[in-house]
């Protein structure tokens, strides 16, 4: 990219770009939380954090990857807190995933059965694998960028991606999908 870097660090984020990044941020949040409402809360928290840390954003760098990184971190912290709270007041024995995967295909799209199936299947992946899969396959981020988003070595990204795809392959191979389309 041939954008000249401005002489000084900007005191604000580029607004149109932030708005333009919203649909993707929202989608990533849904993939992380598995819940449309919690996803919007996560986007809001992420934006608030982005404004707080705006002096750290380098003008001309990929705003989207920077926002994904912030979102990843906010989500990790929230997830840890929610889990702790749930462990303390543990009457509902929902052991591992706080909230759970609520994303389903809308009725209007349910003619695409295989798409519904894909959504159900990615919901069964551990969040860190799901995250890598979406960032690589859908957002088409470089593996190095994904490593920065998750704060892990690139080798970890590649093994997570490999495990995610291996699991999905087994899911579609051995279970001809008892399909749950929630409306």
């Amino acid at each position: 990219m041939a954008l000249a870097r401005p002489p000084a660090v900007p005191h604000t984020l580029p607004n149109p770009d932030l708005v333009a990044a919203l649909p993707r941020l929202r989608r990533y949040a849904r993939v992380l939380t598995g819940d449309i409402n919690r996803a919007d809360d996560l986007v809001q928290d992420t934006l608030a954090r982005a404004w707080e840390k705006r002096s750290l954003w380098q003008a001309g760098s990929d705003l989207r990857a920077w926002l994904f990184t912030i979102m990843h971190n906010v989500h990790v912290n929230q997830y840890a807190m929610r889990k702790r709270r749930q462990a303390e007041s543990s009457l509902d024995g929902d052991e591992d995933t706080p909230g759970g995967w609520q994303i389903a295909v809308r009725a209007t799209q349910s003619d695409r059965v295989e798409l519904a199936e894909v959504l159900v299947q990615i919901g069964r992946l551990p969040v860190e694998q799901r995250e890598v899969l979406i960032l690589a396959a859908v957002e088409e981020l470089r593996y190095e960028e994904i490593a920065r988003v998750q704060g892990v070595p690139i080798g970890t990204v590649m093994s997570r991606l490999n495990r995610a795809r291996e699991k999905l392959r087994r899911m579609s191979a051995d279970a001809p999908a008892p399909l749950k389309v929630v409306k």
Partner: protein
Amino acid sequence: MSVPVSDDDLNAYVDGQLPPERAARVAADVEGDPAFAARAAAIRAHNAQLRDALDPWLSEPLPRELIGAATSSKSHRRGLGRRLWPVLATAASLCIGVALGWLIRGEVLQQAGTPVTFQRQAALTHALYATDANRPVEIWANEEERLVRWLSKRLSFQLHAPNLSDVGFALVGGRLVAGNEKPDKQRISLLVRKDGEHSHETGFRYALEDGVGVFYWIDDNCGYALSGNLDRTQLLSIAHLVYGRLAALESTPK
């Protein structure tokens, strides 16, 4: 015998992340081994399915709170945005059109066997007026206040003109349009219609009408259609922006 392809190679190959010479080697290995070829095809197909499943989310309308959170800085720096929108930055302009009595006209036309949808109307209006060199608008932007007052009065609701100067569009002006009504160049038109009844369709819809792209949506009993000869992604970004700014304008009473 060929060197065995690792799982990591296969993933990186399909995801297009290998440097060219390495990619060529893996490609040769994959082609020579039906099992690998099948796995590569399966990963590729799955990537495509994932995008098909998740891309529709991108065109959902954004909640106002999120737009507010994305635009909540006190200072709006111009210029920075402009650099990021190089395609739009030249000779760009915005027209505000308002369709009045469209429903009646629509009915007449439908009876005549020409169904005219709102998005089609928007594309036609854009096409007709945005190319008009002499009088694309009835009231020019130097009289913005009067324009907004006049159109608001005619429609009996408070109309707003979103400021898009940071993405390189300057307001040209506005006009009242009654029926059907095509443009070119870097110009976009926003058509606003007051709807009588409440509609449940709130999502951003996209239509291509005679080569003019239109994003249209309904919000608070008003129909909005943004049209222009831009590609779908650019137009969608501006549609999100317009939606957000209108929401912000409406929530701040003057």
